[in-house]
């Protein structure tokens, strides 16, 4: 028994630790950073890690540790809100499709999903930024749009199996309409699933934000973001590799943390699903 418990938390604990660490860094950055990230000091640029600047300084002489802390806000916020958009639009669409399963509304929603899926994610981002200009908000929208069909499909799929269950039948007999059943009975039963998928989409969102910023479609200066730090450092890898090393490591650890957390949550919330992907 003890070993199963340990196994159960094997992913959850390190995952939660990493996630809390980086969220914490982002929150702390509102009150305190070792150095100001808005002041440039060209003379102090590209210092290697030292006692004063623990992780060194970037190409404008800003403290990399402070930049990472402030950058965490952007990167986490973009991915988080994008997941929110996915949930906000995707879940109701999925619920609706499931309650009208087989009907034209279902067909319409599912074909709409196919349509969005048919566009490669980066192409959506390129189109949006071409129209509205690059920026954190547009990165959120681009990533968010892609999250919608993910949640819609998941919600629909999970709801469909529930609709045949006895307790739903009972609710129907009691005279509740589809919308009420969806909200009162279906939704609570798929919450765990949504939380797990949300964590996964969150980690994908971090990667997407990094990628978008890397090609210049994400947050704009002077707002630091992890992806932008990578983009700024790409021409400097031959002279100052630490400029690219630390932001990249932070991204890897955050994504890793979120994935572990997702796996851990699945094990914890729903032992039946336990299969460590």
């Amino acid at each position: 028994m003890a070993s199963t418990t340990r196994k159960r938390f094997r992913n959850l604990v390190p995952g939660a630790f990493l996630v809390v660490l980086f969220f914490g860094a982002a929150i702390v950055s509102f009150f305190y950073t070792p150095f100001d990230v808005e002041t440039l000091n060209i003379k102090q640029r590209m210092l290697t890690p030292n006692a004063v600047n623990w992780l060194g300084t970037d190409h404008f002489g800003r403290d990399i540790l402070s930049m990472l802390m402030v950058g965490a806000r952007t990167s986490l916020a973009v991915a988080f809100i994008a997941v929110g958009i996915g949930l906000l639009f995707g879940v109701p669409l999925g619920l609706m499709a499931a309650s009208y399963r087989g009907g034209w509304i279902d067909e319409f929603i599912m074909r709409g999903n196919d349509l969005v899926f048919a566009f490669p994610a980066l192409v959506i981002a390129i189109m949006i930024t071409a129209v509205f200009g690059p920026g954190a908000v547009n990165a959120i929208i681009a990533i968010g749009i892609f999250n919608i069909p993910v949640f819609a499909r998941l919600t629909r799929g999970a709801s469909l199996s529930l609709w045949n269950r006895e307790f739903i039948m009972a609710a129907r007999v009691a005279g509740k309409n589809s919308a009420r059943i969806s909200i009162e009975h279906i939704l609570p039963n798929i919450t765990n699933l949504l939380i797990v998928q949300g964590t996964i989409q969150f980690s994908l969102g971090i990667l997407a934000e990094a990628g978008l910023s890397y090609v210049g479609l994400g947050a704009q200066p002077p707002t630091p973001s992890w992806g932008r730090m990578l983009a700024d450092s790409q021409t400097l890898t031959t002279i100052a590799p630490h400029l690219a090393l630390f932001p990249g490591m932070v991204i890897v650890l955050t994504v890793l943390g979120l994935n572990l957390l997702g796996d851990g949550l699945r094990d914890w919330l729903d032992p039946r699903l336990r299969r460590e992907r």
Partner: protein
Amino acid sequence: MLFYLFKRITSLIATLVVASLVVFTVIEVVPGDPASYMLGMNASEDTVQALKTELGLNQGRIPRYFGWVSGMLRGDFGTSYTYRTPVADMVSERLMVSLPLALSALTLAIVLAFPAGLLAASRRGGAVDSIVMAITQLGVAIPNFWFAMWLVLLFAIKWQWFSAGGFPGWDIGFWGGMKALTLPAIALALPQASILARVLRSSLLDVLNEDYVRTARAKGLTRRQALWRHALRNAMIPVLTIIGLQFSFLLAGAIIIENVFFLPGLGRLIFQSIAQRDLIVVESVIMLLVFAVVLVTFLVDIAYAWVDPRMRRGH
């Protein structure tokens, strides 16, 4: 089945029509036009207008939309505004980079993922399983372009085994071309291999728990025999689906990697053309990619329906 086919074809066409409308509308409202871009800062307004007329940009939007769509139906994708060459030629040239890149990345991913996934599944819970799971967990978390940066730094700059990017063309020989694609393919393959290994492992474990495998084992097959004789074949369906998805992702989703290695592939073509407001190229290439994805989805659906009649109604 016929009705199902009819329904799916109708929705395929509807998706493409809607997609073409979306693409055209979005690209049309992008600020900036190709003529001004090409002529730069010193050009006068009448020069810009003259070039617009020459490029056919002064026609209304509706005739241009229909011109574009009917051209595509005839296989004519128009002529690039800035390069002045047929879009179809440009695309086929770019495909000669993107396609081999996607194929080699996928091959590499499969070659890495299969042994890893099989090994992990056959020794579930053991040390090998843990190591494979840890590596793949990391592989999924590493941004491929960041990984690519280090590959360039080590293999191209420090040791100079490979060139840091660019594509010399296939006319210098097959291996010359493949050499240029090696680093990008590795960068692309790492996360894909990790995903694939995980999917393979879990789908093998699923199958191993199914009744018929248990029966087989009860009949005296060892776990490994059961794995090879029964599970692998049945576990392939989800794996193949993922591979299909990965292929279409790799074809278009290599944009960032193509940028890191400045490979003249399809993704970078979109990127470049939108910067230059070479709208016809952007529109046509996006439509091609959409068409590819939609077609693959369609074929997969049909194949499923053919295999499993239950799929024909709903899901």
